[in-house]
C-alpha cells in the first residue's frame, strides 16, 4: 500500500464521513456543557434540629480541609464516646473541587449531614438552593462570638456558623526585623517602607510574594485597601457599578503596591506558594503576605522564629488608621436540610461548639476559632490572640460575588508589579469589569 492510499482523493470537498468525523471530535467539547440538566427547585430554609434528640447511626461531615482530618478524627472518637453507637465519618474534597461541586453532591443528602461553606459566593449558593437549615434559634449559637459569625447569615437568617477565625494579613518574622534594627510592627506607610528598606539592607528578601498562586497572592489586597477604600463595602460597590477600578482610591492602592513590589523576590510573578513558603521558613525572606492560616505550615516546616501579623498600613504617619487589620470567619458549619441523620448532625455541631473541643480543634490546626471562652495552648495562637479584640475589618476580598470581576481587579496588581502603570492597569481592569456588569 502506498502512502497515498491512506488518504482521501484529491480535489473533492469534505465528504459525509469527514463532516461526521469533525462533529464527532467536536462533540466532546459540547459534552462538557451538557453534563447535567436543570435540577430540582429550592425552598426556604427549614429550622435546624435541636440537639439532644435520639442520636444514633453515622454522621457524615463534608468539608474541604484535608489538613484537619487527623484532628477531627480525634474529636470524632470523643464524640462517639459521648454518644454511644454514633460514628462520624469525614468526606473531604480539595477546596477548588469543593467550591465547584459541593452543592451538587450534597443537595440530596447522600453526603454531608453536616457540611461547610466558604463565606460569600458559596453560602449564597447554598441559601438559594435551600441546602442549609436555619440555625437562628439553635441553643449553641450562644457559644459563639456574635460579632464574628455574621458571614454565616444570609438575608438576616443564620444559615451556618463560621468556625474558623482567620487573619488575612502578612506574617512577619520578628527575629529578622529585630536583626535589621526594627523593634515595632509598622503602624503607617513610611514606617512600613522603612522596615522593608532595613530588611533589604540586612541581606534578606523583604517580602516573598507568591505571584503565580492567585488564592495566596491576592490576600494582600485586604490590608492594602482597608485604609484606602472609601468605605467598608468598596469591592461590593465596584461589582454593583457604584465605584470604579479607576477611582483614585484604587489607583492609590496600585501605586503603593507597585512600590511594595520593589521589595519582592526575583521573578516573583512565577512563584508558587511552596517556593515562597520555603523562602520564609528558611529565613531568606522576612514577610509572607498571606495570612495566619499558614502558620501551621510554617511551623511544620521547622521554623522556630517569632511571628507577628503585619498588615500593610497605608495611612500617613500620625494619621489614625480606620482599621488596624483584617479578619475573616469561614469554614461555615451548617446542617443539611436533606440530612439523613439530622439529629446526629445537630449533635456534632453542638459538640464542636463546646469551648474545650473548639480549643482542641484550634490547637490541632493552628487556627483561631469563633467560639467564645476558648483557651488555646498553642503558643502562636496565644501570641496572636490580642488580634481577636482589635479593630479589624472583615476581609473585603470576599465581597466579590462575580469571580471574573474579582479576577480583573486582583490581576491589576500583577500588572503594576510587572511594569504597567497604575492608571493603565486600572483602566484595563475597569474595562473587564464593565464587560461583566
Amino acid at each position, binding site marked *: 500500500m502506498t502512502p497515498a492510499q491512506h488518504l482521501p482523493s484529491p480535489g473533492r470537498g469534505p465528504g459525509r464521513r469527514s463532516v461526521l468525523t469533525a462533529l464527532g471530535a467536536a462533540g466532546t467539547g459540547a459534552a462538557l456543557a451538557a453534563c447535567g440538566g436543570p435540577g430540582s427547585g429550592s425552598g426556604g430554609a427549614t429550622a435546624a434540629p435541636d440537639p439532644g434528640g435520639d442520636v444514633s447511626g453515622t454522621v457524615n461531615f463534608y468539608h474541604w480541609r484535608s489538613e484537619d482530618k487527623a484532628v477531627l478524627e480525634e474529636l470524632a472518637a470523643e464524640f462517639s464516646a459521648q454518644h454511644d453507637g454514633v460514628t462520624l465519618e469525614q468526606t473531604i474534597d480539595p477546596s477548588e473541587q469543593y467550591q465547584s461541586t459541593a452543592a451538587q453532591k450534597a443537595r440530596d443528602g447522600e453526603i454531608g449531614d453536616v457540611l461547610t461553606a466558604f463565606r460569600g459566593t458559596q453560602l449564597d449558593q447554598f441559601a438559594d438552593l435551600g441546602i442549609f437549615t436555619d440555625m437562628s434559634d439553635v441553643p449553641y449559637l450562644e457559644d459563639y462570638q456574635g460579632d464574628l459569625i455574621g458571614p454565616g447569615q444570609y438575608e438576616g437568617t443564620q444559615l451556618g456558623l463560621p468556625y474558623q477565625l482567620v487573619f488575612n494579613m502578612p506574617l512577619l518574622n520578628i527575629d529578622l526585623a529585630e536583626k535589621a534594627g526594627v523593634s515595632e510592627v509598622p503602624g503607617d506607610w513610611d514606617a512600613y517602607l522603612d522596615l522593608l528598606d532595613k530588611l533589604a539592607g540586612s541581606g534578606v528578601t523583604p517580602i516573598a510574594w507568591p505571584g503565580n498562586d492567585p488564592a495566596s497572592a491576592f490576600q494582600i489586597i485586604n490590608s492594602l485597601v482597608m485604609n484606602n477604600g472609601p468605605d467598608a463595602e468598596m469591592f461590593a460597590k465596584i461589582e454593583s457599578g457604584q465605584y470604579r477600578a479607576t477611582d483614585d482610591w484604587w489607583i492609590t492602592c496600585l501605586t503603593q503596591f507597585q512600590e511594595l513590589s520593589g521589595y519582592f523576590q526575583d521573578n516573583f510573578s*512565577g512563584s508558587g506558594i511552596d517556593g515562597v513558603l520555603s523562602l520564609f521558613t528558611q529565613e531568606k525572606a522576612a514577610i509572607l503576605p498571606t495570612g495566619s492560616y499558614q502558620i501551621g505550615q510554617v511551623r511544620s516546616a521547622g521554623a522556630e522564629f517569632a511571628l507577628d501579623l503585619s498588615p500593610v498600613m497605608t495611612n500617613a504617619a500620625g494619621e489614625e488608621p480606620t482599621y488596624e487589620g483584617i479578619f475573616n470567619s469561614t469554614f461555615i458549619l451548617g446542617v443539611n436540610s436533606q440530612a439523613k441523620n439530622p439529629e446526629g448532625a445537630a449533635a456534632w455541631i453542638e459538640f464542636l461548639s463546646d469551648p474545650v473541643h473548639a480549643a482542641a480543634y484550634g490547637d490541632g490546626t493552628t487556627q483561631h476559632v469563633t467560639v467564645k471562652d476558648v483557651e488555646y495552648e498553642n503558643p502562636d495562637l496565644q501570641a496572636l490572640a490580642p488580634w481577636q479584640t482589635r479593630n479589624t475589618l472583615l476581609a473585603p476580598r470576599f465581597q466579590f460575588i462575580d469571580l471574573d470581576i474579582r479576577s480583573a481587579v486582583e490581576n491589576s496588581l500583577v500588572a503594576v508589579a510587572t511594569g504597567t502603570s497604575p492608571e493603565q492597569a486600572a483602566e484595563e481592569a475597569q474595562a473587564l469589569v464593565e464587560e461583566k456588569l
Partner: protein
Amino acid sequence: MVYVWFVLWPTVQAFQFSITDWDGLSADFSWVGLENYRTLITGDSVFARAVGNSLAFMLVVVIGQTILSLALAVALLRSTRISIALRALFFFPTVLSSVAVAFIWSFVYDPTFGLANRLLLAVGLGSWQQPWLGDQQMAIYYLALVQIWFHAGQMMVVYIAGLQQIPQELYDAAALDGAGRWQKFRHLTFPLVQPATVIVVAYTTIQSFKAFDLIIASTGGGPNHATEILATLIYDSAFRNFEMGYAAAQSVIFMVIIAAITLLQRRAVSLASGGSNR
C-alpha cells in the same frame, strides 16, 4: 443509535443550554436567545484571549511535537542497545498522568528553587533567568514545551513504525546515485513517512485541545488569563461562576472551531495527497 445518544444528543443539548441563563444548579432559568453568543463575540475579551491562546498552543505543539518526534524516530531507528534504552527513556513521560507532569514541571519552572533557573545559573547564564509561568507573554509557550515533552515519545513510536515500513533498497539505490543523508531524508524519508505524519498531526491537534488538566494543574489559566484556553475557560464559567448557559455557548463555539480545524486538516491532507500523486 450509539452515535446519536453519545454525540449528537449532547451536542443538541449543549446548544439548548446555550440559549438560557441557567446557573447549572437551580431549576430556574430563562430563555435568552442568542444573547450569550452576542456577548461572547462582541463583549468578552477574556474569551477572545482564550481562543487566541488555544490556537497558539495548538500550533506550537503540533509543529514542535511533529518535528521532535520525527527527529527522535530517525535518530533512534536502528535497534542498538543504546537506542532501545533511549526510546524507553523518551517514551517514559507518556505513562505519567498529566497532573503529575504539571506537578513535576511546576518545580522545574519555579523561579526560586526550580531546575530551569538553577541550570541557567550553573552555566553562567544567570541573567537569562525567568519567572517562566509568571511571564504573561511567554507562559503559554512554556506550557506548550511541557506538552511536547509529554507526548513526543508516544509520537516517536508512531514514526518509528512508519520508518520501518520504508524498504532499505530505496536508500541503497539513493546511495548509489550519490545522495547524502540530508537528500535521503528530504526525498525519501519525509515523503514516505507521510501516513505517520497524518496520524501524528491529527493526534497532536486533539491532544493540544485536551491539555485542560495540564493547564489547570500548572497555572489554572493565569497569570491574568495568560494561559487561559477554551477548555479552562469553559470549566471556570460552568463550575466556578455557575454560568452553565454561558459555558454551553462557549462550548458550542469551541465545537465549531474544532470542527473547522478538523475539516481544514482533512482538506490540507487531500491537497497534499493530490500533489504527491502528480
